[in-house]
């Protein structure tokens, strides 16, 4: 079963996510990232965004992918409810489905994510694949 867990520290939040494939673990990590700030039940799917990320290593790929979501929230106020990830040669492609936030929805429930860090970054090959990453809030 794919899933995720958030572990708050003093001024950061740890994400642990898992899935049968690397792509699935990344999808769960994306859901976890958004759930730090927003109540996932209040994100209606209205729009999509396609992103492509390149990296020479899977751990870097994860950081870059999640930072893509942070960027979309900050620059476009786009909040993703779901990510569909396809791992490609040297990177990944993802279709993000969600909505542009207004003052009311999605409902905020936690701190704003500043950045996804390289601190304590881990990827355990699977199945099940497990990833760990720490975000700065």
């Amino acid at each position, binding site marked *: 079963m794919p899933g995720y867990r958030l572990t*708050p*520290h*003093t*001024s*950061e*939040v740890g994400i642990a996510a898992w899935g049968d494939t690397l792509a699935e673990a990344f999808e769960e990590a994306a859901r976890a990232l958004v759930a730090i*700030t927003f109540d996932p039940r209040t994100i209606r799917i209205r729009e999509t965004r396609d992103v492509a990320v390149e990296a020479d290593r899977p751990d*870097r790929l994860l950081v*870059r992918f999640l*930072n893509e979501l*942070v*960027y979309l*929230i*900050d*620059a*476009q*106020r786009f909040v993703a409810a779901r990510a569909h990830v396809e791992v490609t040669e040297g990177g990944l492609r993802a279709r993000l489905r969600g909505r542009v*936030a207004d*003052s009311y929805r999605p409902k*905020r*429930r*936690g*701190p*704003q994510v*500043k*950045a*996804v*860090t*390289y*601190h*304590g*970054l881990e990827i355990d090959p699977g199945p099940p694949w497990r990833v760990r990453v*720490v975000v*700065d*809030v």
Partner: protein
Amino acid sequence: MVHQTPPAEKRAPLPVEPAGECRWVVPKGARPWMRTSALVIADERLLEHIRAEQALDQLANATALPGIVGQALAMPDCHQGYGLPVGGVVATELKHGVVSPGAVGYDVNCGVRLLASDLAEHELLRQQTKLADLLGRSIPSGVGGHDGLDLGRRDLEALLKGGAEWMVDEQGWGEAEDLDVIESGGRIDGADPDAVSARAKDRGLHQVATLGAGNHFLEVQVVDEVYDEAAAAAMGLAKGRVTMLVHSGSRGLGHQVCQDFLETMADLMVAHGIELPDRQLACGPIDSPEGRRYLAAMGAAANFAFANRQGLAHRARRAFHELFGRDGALRLVYDVCHNIAKVERHRIGGVERDVLVHRKGATRAFPAGHPELPERYRAVGQPVLIPGDMGRYSFVAVGTEVAMRDTFGSICHGAGRTLSRHAAKRRLEGVDVASELKKRGILVRTPSPRELAEEASLAYKDVADVVDVCVRAGIARKVARLRPRIVIKG
């Protein structure tokens, strides 16, 4: 992996030796990669806080930065961060040393500005609710708060070059004399908008003059206590008078600049054969195209933050003017950076030299007589602004010659958390933090009241303890204490 080392929690605890009043040293040999020792400014209790997390290991790791000069330093409010701990200071030599974006932090030029008025507390109290409502409406905050400034790309680029000066000259937001009392005059020389990525600019475009979320705030306060009459007088602070404190930084633009250059530096380290025990410390030679480019981008992000605080102060000044007319005039006392790297002249081993001082969650605190100080503060020293939590108080201090000698002219930057946001929320389950504060005469306005628990007093150390340790260590003198009356949170 850049370096194969076991995680800090699995390593033996670092040895810490007492080294004088509120001083502790981690000796150079404690880890094989240490190039110098580390100095911690703390009393026994704060040292326990620092040792409880990975902060000390992070400090020891930072001593591995090539070209480090003097000691790596931790201020009494030090806590675990990424790369360098928050509350850390490291200086590197310009010719063979490195610059590390992780030793500046994600929120480039996060900082604090203080404004003072001649309003008496009772005049404020008559309009307290009105002012709180008005500020709540006029200060954009929260996640993705709109700025209402509607800048174009070209404006943004000019702002990245001009900082607070651009806000005053081009937007007419503030007074020319404000610029005299902002660190670096509110504009970092050598800032280059071209060094800032398009993505960073996208994130910053609509965030000028917005507070942001988290621990950022705008407070209306009252001078509660004056410890140093002469210094307070020079700063225009008098007991019972109203002040305003703004804490914000470079928002998404600065975060993206840091992120971009962590990646750049990670590649550069491979190219230069630099190995470090922590990837978040990623660094590159100051004297390299990438190093210079980071400093140019960091300068632009710092200018964004100066402009941001200038804009926030302007919005608040307008609100004061609306309610109090000319009596509500707010004079800028000072504006400090607490996440930045700067070239400064320091005396190291008896020799004066220019070094790059990285301060992350630490504040520059130049003493009286320092040539970089504005005329107004030449005789008393640079004002240092140290915010506490929203339920207690904040402090104004000045630096000393001892700070110049021992800490690269740096002191603490705040209280530092003791509880995670989550733990604070759990502890305050069912407590209405805003109405608790209201009972004590503090009005809070925020778009996200549910997040208030995360910022409650019990989540933070008592900032008075942190400041007192700086005083006992001889690196600071207290000037005044400020007590909140209105709090605007993101």
